[in-house]
Each structure stands twice: as structure tokens, then as C-alpha cells.
């Protein structure tokens, strides 16, 4: 059995009195597309933050290619090949679309400050390669026409694509997408699924947080379901979709279904609205 590319074991994260993640474990094999789903506030983004180094785990380990990456700074983890996007976009607004994507190439280029300061030929050559690579990625995702536009002038849907393009430009080993389809039209979503599919065929490994079930069903190989920070289900999309605990988590309490799944016998009513008003914002 080949070793997994990314292995999360017993991952826990607490914020003061709140446990955002509790004992979460799963593995991602090379070339796999793993989807993370769950109601709002389940801890999905926190999971990403811990895996990519923006937050330190309270307990548990994250292993990438067999080696622990706990506690490493996010730039180190990204430089190792784990590239993520953000749910609240962080495009570089003042730079053009092309420049944004060129920044993505940072991790596999090597011009240091000194070489850059002296405008050495190697630096200039590399810059040309970076520009070409960036254009190729823009063509792949369909943003080639807006290459010279300022990033902040793009509508949100296109900005999302830009962020994905930028992540792609980094030639990641694992691409972690945080709600890539949020804010996209149906057409854009289909396009996104096509792009992800093409990349999958080329062997890219994905870890995707998604609410949009179309994307999950079509693109994911396996699904992990989080609720209140715990993993409550894992398996193929079709299996997870039918899992009673998952249904209960999303749809609120059907007392029978909950009892059948062994959750909270005689359990309390769960709010129907997925957004959780009392939990802290960063869960």
C-alpha cells in the first residue's frame, strides 16, 4: 500500500474554551480528490488553516510525504508544495491578473534579491519563463483575455478563478481549494469542474472544501464530513450522501434519524439555519 501524500492524524485545535477541531484523521493519496464537507462552522476552514500552517494544532499531527509539518510557517509549507486558496479572496488587488499569477510561480523560481537588484541575465531569463508559464495557466482557466486588467476590477467569480490560477501557477503537489465554487454562476461552476477534472487526469492531488454538491459529486473521489469539529463520516460521495448522520447534521434534527445514528438520544433541536450564531467566527 503506497504511503499517503498527506496524512492528518488526531488533529485537534482549541481556541480558549472552544474546540474547533477534535481528533480529526484522514489521508489523501497521490492523485486523489478528497472533498471536505459539513455545515457552516464545522471547522473546515480551521482544518485548512492548521494543515497549511496558519494555525498551530493543539494536538495531533499533519504529515506530508511522511514527514511532520506541524508548526512550520505557512510559507515553508507552501514552498514544499501544499498550495491553498482562500474563501475570502486574497488576490493582490493592485497588481494585474497576469502579475498575480506570476507571483504564484515564486516557489519554483530562485532569483534572489541580489541577483534581482543587479538585473543579472539569469534573472531576466527567468522572468520571461515565468511570464510564459503564467500565460499558459491563464489560458487553461480561461482568464487569458483579462491578463492586463487590475485584479481588483474583476468580478468576484473571475477573482476566484484568478486565485485558483495563481495557485496552479505554483505547480503544487497538493492543491487545497477552500470553497472554489462559492459565488460562481452555474456556467462558471461547470467550467471549474472541467478544469479540476483535467488537472486530476494529469495527476494533481486535491483537497477541496465545498458546499456545492454538484462539484462534490462530480469531482470528488472520497468525501470527509465534519460537524462541530469532528469527523462524522468518510467514504465515496454516494455513500456519504446516504449516511444518516450526515443527513441529520445538514438538515437538522429528525429525532428518529438521529437516534438511529446513535447521536444524542432524545436530542436537542438543532437550528435549521446552517449558520451558527453563537460559535466564534474563526471556527
Amino acid at each position: 500500500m503506497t504511503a499517503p501524500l498527506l496524512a492528518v492524524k488526531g488533529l485537534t485545535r482549541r481556541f480558549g474554551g472552544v474546540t474547533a477541531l477534535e481528533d480529526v484523521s484522514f489521508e489523501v493519496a497521490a492523485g486523489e480528490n478528497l472533498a471536505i464537507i459539513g455545515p457552516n462552522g464545522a471547522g473546515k476552514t480551521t482544518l485548512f488553516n492548521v494543515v497549511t500552517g496558519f494555525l498551530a494544532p493543539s494536538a495531533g499531527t499533519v504529515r506530508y510525504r511522511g514527514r511532520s509539518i506541524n508548526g512550520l510557517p505557512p510559507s515553508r509549507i507552501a514552498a514544499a508544495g501544499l498550495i491553498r486558496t482562500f474563501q475570502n479572496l486574497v488576490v493582490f488587488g493592485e497588481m494585474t491578473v497576469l502579475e498575480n499569477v506570476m507571483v504564484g510561480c515564486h516557489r519554483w523560481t530562485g532569483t534572489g534579491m541580489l541577483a534581482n537588484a543587479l538585473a543579472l541575465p539569469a534573472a531576466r531569463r527567468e522572468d520571461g519563463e515565468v511570464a510564459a508559464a503564467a500565460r499558459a495557466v491563464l489560458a487553461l482557466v480561461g482568464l487569458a483575455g483579462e491578463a492586463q486588467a487590475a485584479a481588483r476590477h474583476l468580478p468576484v467569480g473571475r477573482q476566484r478563478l484568478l486565485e485558483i490560477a495563481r495557485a496552479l501557477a505554483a505547480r503544487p503537489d497538493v492543491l487545497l481549494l477552500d470553497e472554489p465554487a462559492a459565488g460562481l454562476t452555474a456556467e462558471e461552476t461547470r467550467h471549474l469542474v472541467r478544469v479540476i477534472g483535467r488537472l486530476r487526469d494529469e495527476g494533481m492531488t486535491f483537497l477541496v472544501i465545498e458546499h456545492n454538491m454538484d462539484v462534490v459529486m462530480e469531482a470528488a473521489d472520497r468525501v470527509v464530513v465534519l460537524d462541530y469539529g469532528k469527523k462524522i463520516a468518510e467514504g465515496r460521495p454516494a455513500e456519504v450522501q446516504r449516511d444518516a448522520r450526515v443527513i441529520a447534521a445538514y438538515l437538522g434534527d429528525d429525532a428518529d434519524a438521529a437516534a438511529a445514528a446513535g447521536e444524542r438520544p432524545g436530542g436537542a433541536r438543532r437550528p435549521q439555519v446552517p449558520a451558527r450564531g453563537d460559535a466564534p467566527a474563526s471556527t
Partner: protein
Amino acid sequence: MADCPAATGVSRDLAGLAVLAAGLAIVPAVAPSAYVMALLNIVGLYTIVTVGLILLGTSGQVSLGQAAFYGVGAYGSALLARDLGWSPWLAMPGAVVLVVATAYAVGLPALRLADVFFVLATLGVGIIVNVLMIQLDPLTGGASGLRDIPPLAIGGRPLTTDREYFYVIWTVALAALVVARNLTTRRTGRALRAILGSEIGAAALGIDVPRYRMRVFVLSAAYAGAAGALYAHYVRFISPSPFALYASLFFLIMAVVGGLTNIWGGLFGAAAVTALDQIVRAQMPRLFPRIGGEYQTAIYGIVLILIMIFFPSGIARGGIDLRRLLRGDAAGPATDRPAAADVVSGGSRKRAFGRRPRVRSEEEAWASPLTETSRRPQVPARGDAPASPPVGTTTENPHA
């Protein structure tokens, strides 16, 4: 390579550089007086400091302590040359090394602070260094300063005229401009601007944000220190007063006038503010005979306010924006204003009036994009797109 985005910018800058160098070469021949030469020399020195400050600005940082580094460079080189007998050509780099060490020491704690508090830390450092200049009397000569600083010499012959120093100073200034300009392009330039745009986004792409910020900070200090060292050997007498807080504000004004992210603006800013200063000094005594002291601070204060309100990206840039406006292109300065405050707005949506900056930058830097879909309604800073996608709109029934 032809369509490489840097290419057109490079050829434009090279052309500008050539014109500048040619112009500078003939200035000494056509300059009307020694006074003008001296003025141009000062502009050259200020250009070096301002360019360093602007370089710092491209990564989104502002320092109000450049006068401290300017002063350490000046005192360092003066003491090495005068008291230790070093040749000024060795003393100046030596002083820069000293400044670099100081900047590292200051940067280590200071760079962990969020924007505004970082600025204030640099302010504090500036004041502390200035006080030390006055208090460490045996070393620095105290408030009366240091005299008899050796001049620069080439081939054994000391440089004595403003004309001779003109060439030295402006050679260094040109080199400083070129290096700074190079650093704002290609990989390093993009990394710095990415840090300005979003530190989190930059880190998520593998950019070592703390390392870049430290290096740029130290470099900007080195620029100021080099200028200070040159200054010491040029005027041959230094005292603590040119290195006080107002000098740092002065440098900031020059950077702001030139455009906090526009390297060539360093030259424009230094020249414009120095010119303004000269005019004010000449005209004010006529209008207000009673005054002594630094009355021009009132003018600079108002200038600073006006620029930060109307041209936060600098007057030089503001001019370019107006041209685009007249051509009917993308919005000019007024509409761009919330986004055009190049200093730090970048891609961030921080606003005063209710948004409290945290002291430690880890809090601030990692705060917003790491939260899940925000339930807090966000007032869109930019007209078009909503800040965060609507909650749960695409959640579908898992049954389907």
C-alpha cells in the same frame, strides 16, 4: 521575452535613466552658482534616503525613523574617519555596516508589530537615537556636534568644491535609483508587492514574508546610512539637529510627494520638497517679519495633509492618473482613492472609523481571510463585488 510585462517598463526606465544621467553630467557646466550646486548636492543626498523609504513602502511599510539611520551613518563614518584614521572610502561602507547592524537589531522586534505600531516603533527609535547623539557627549560631541571631519579624497587629492562632490553624490544616487528600481521588478518586486497586497496570500504562495520585510527594512536603512555618510564628508561638520524627528517627517513628506511606491518619485519628491523649502525660506521673512524658527513646518503640515487626502499615491502618480482620466480610461485619483492609498491598502479592506488595528501583526495578518464564510456583513470597500459570497446559497439537499 518581448511580451514580458517588465520589458516595456524596463526600456522606458532605461531611457529615462539615460536622459537623467546625461542631464546630470552637464549640470556642473551650466549651473549658475555654487549655491545651486550645493542645493543639488543636498537634493542628491535626500534622493538616496527617499528612494530607500519608498522601497520600504513597496512592501507596505512606513518608517518614521530614517533620520536615525541617516544620523548613524553620518556619525559612524565621521568617527571612523576622524578618530580612527580610516580613509573615508572605507569609513563610509563601515558606517553602512553599522547602520545595517542597527537596523537588524531594531527590525527584529519591530517588524512583528502591525503597520501603525511598527511606524511608531520606528519613531521611537528615531527619538532614542537622536537623544543618544546629544547625550553621549564624549563620543559624539554632544549638542555642539563633530567638527573636522575629513573630506573625501581621490588619488591623494581631497575634494573641495561642490562640483566635485556633485559627481560623487549623484553617481551614488543614480546607482541607488537603479538598484531600487530593479528590486521593484521581476521576482523580488512581485514578492514585495504581493506582501503589500496581502501578507497571507503571499505566505500561502511560499513567499517568506518576514525575511523579505526584514531585508527591505535593512536595505532602506542602509540607503539612509549611505547618504548620511556622504553628508558627513561633504559638509564636514555634523550636529544632532538635522537628525531629529522633523527630519524623519521631512523624508516622509518627500516620499509621499513622490509617491510612496514609485521609485522615480523619490527623485521628484526630494527635488520638489527641497525647492519648496527654499522658496518658503526666501519668501516667509518678507510676509511675516516677526518669525524665527521652523515656521515652514506649518506649510509642510498642510502639504502633508492635502497630499494624504487627495493624492495618497503621490503627486507624481497623481499626475499620471489625471492623464488617464482625461483620456477616459479607468477612474482617476478621486474615485480610486480608497484603493489608491498605496502605502498599505493594497488588497486589504482595513478601514479606520471602527476597525481597530492590533498591536501584534500576527493577529492582524492572520485574522480576516482565515475565518469561514463570514456571518458578519462586510461593508464592501469597492463598488462592484460583494466581499464574501452569500452564506449557504448553494447548499443543496444531499438527498437529491
